[in-house]
């Protein structure tokens, strides 16, 4: 099913999304990957605030290429989400709800998603030039020294995604493959 979603990603909206849904996201999202997540979780452990309000926030696991003159952002496809598995439950525990990336997640992340009504979206890995087209604004908000891994606030319009794992724990990687194989029997 095709759905157009306006961010932020509230619990009510999250519950309407199901694994396999084709989704177009519009609104503000935040970028972070390995080093940024490590810093954010260390900050939370010290009792500090995050550089952005995590309530109902969606985080895009991406490290873009530098923007050419005239570009909002360089190529900006998803990185492998599994490397953020160590941090994702902590991020959801403070209110973050949406995650955009690619690749498998650990069972503990799926459990946290069920508990906090999180949604894991897949963007097409390797389609960085195409995905950059839906990013209309890009602002560096923290950890500038991390270069491509710095925290950025993005405004996206109709970002094409697929729900990989929904808030009930249903998983397109398992169900999609099984459905395809069943169709060949």
């Amino acid at each position, binding site marked *: 099913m095709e759905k157009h979603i306006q961010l932020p990603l509230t619990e009510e909206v999250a519950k309407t999304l199901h694994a396999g849904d084709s989704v177009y996201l519009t609104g503000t999202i935040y970028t972070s990957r390995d080093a940024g997540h490590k810093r954010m979780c260390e900050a939370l452990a010290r009792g500090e605030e995050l550089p952005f309000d995590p309530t109902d926030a969606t985080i895009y696991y991406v490290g873009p290429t530098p923007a050419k003159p005239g570009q909002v952002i360089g190529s900006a496809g998803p990185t492998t989400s599994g490397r953020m598995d160590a941090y994702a439950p902590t991020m959801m525990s403070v209110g973050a709800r949406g995650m955009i990336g690619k690749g*498998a997640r650990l069972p503990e992340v799926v459990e946290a998603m069920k508990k906090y009504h999180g949604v894991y979206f897949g963007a097409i890995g390797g389609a960085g*030039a*195409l995905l950059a087209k839906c990013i209309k604004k890009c602002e560096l908000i923290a950890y500038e020294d991390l270069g491509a891994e710095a925290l950025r606030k993005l405004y996206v319009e109709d970002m094409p995604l697929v729900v990989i794992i929904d808030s009930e724990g249903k998983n397109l990687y398992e*169900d999609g493959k099984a459905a395809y194989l069943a169709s060949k029997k």
Partner: protein
Amino acid sequence: MREIQAQQITDVVEKLCIEANQYLPEDVQGAIRRCRACEDWEIAQGVLDKIITNFEIAREENVPICQDTGMACVFLEIGQDVHIVGGDLSEAVDEGVRRGYDKGYLRKSVVKDPVRRGNTGDNTPAMLYTEIVPGEQIKVTVGPKGFGSENMSAIRMFKPSAGIEGIKDFILETVETAGPNPCPPMVVGVGIGGTFDKCALLAKKALMRSTDERNPDPYYADLEAEMLEKINKLGIGPQGFGGKTTALALNIETLPTHIAGMPCAVNINCHVTRHKTEVI
């Protein structure tokens, strides 16, 4: 004896870093289009269409196909009658990478220490592989390698008694474990034989070979075809959403090995399998 200036090597590496990241090789483009034509699963068709649109945008707008512009793997086949003058070879290659990644607006993805981390800021050092060959030319190949797929690669030191079935099972197991992580449809590079280190290098070299080119030994050409077919029956599909197109190609390279061993390495690459070559 022919003299080649180190500066020439820098210039070629700079150019190849940029071009390899913006223009997907013709053979990989062709393989993706052929797979799209054969794909019968709807969600997979949609993903392959977007992948095709993406490499077309990159080519037309001179932007990187993927944001992971990789570690710069640089292969030099240096003719034994060449004398490199006017600078240090490794530094000349690194300078080419430094300039290419700067001028091409490519991402700097290298950390200076594997444990303590810290970005080097210019994507150096290159992963440099040199080979001395007959002649008086230098063949330069730049293959930017992303790590989403590199992380899903594996090597195993088999006993010879494991035989060809052991190797087949290992290839399938590695691809199945990789699943959606390496951005399928993937290209699979397989090295068989040599020593532990040479075997891994064979697998990397297999990824630099055209996806249209089969192993010249019919035994291994048949194995390439058989394993590609088996991989494409796993059902992983483009991006792991299900479908027929899990791999675009599987290339095997081999070397003689020890009487006691049968090493096998599987180096996984994504649908953005990049490499560009120029001869100086």
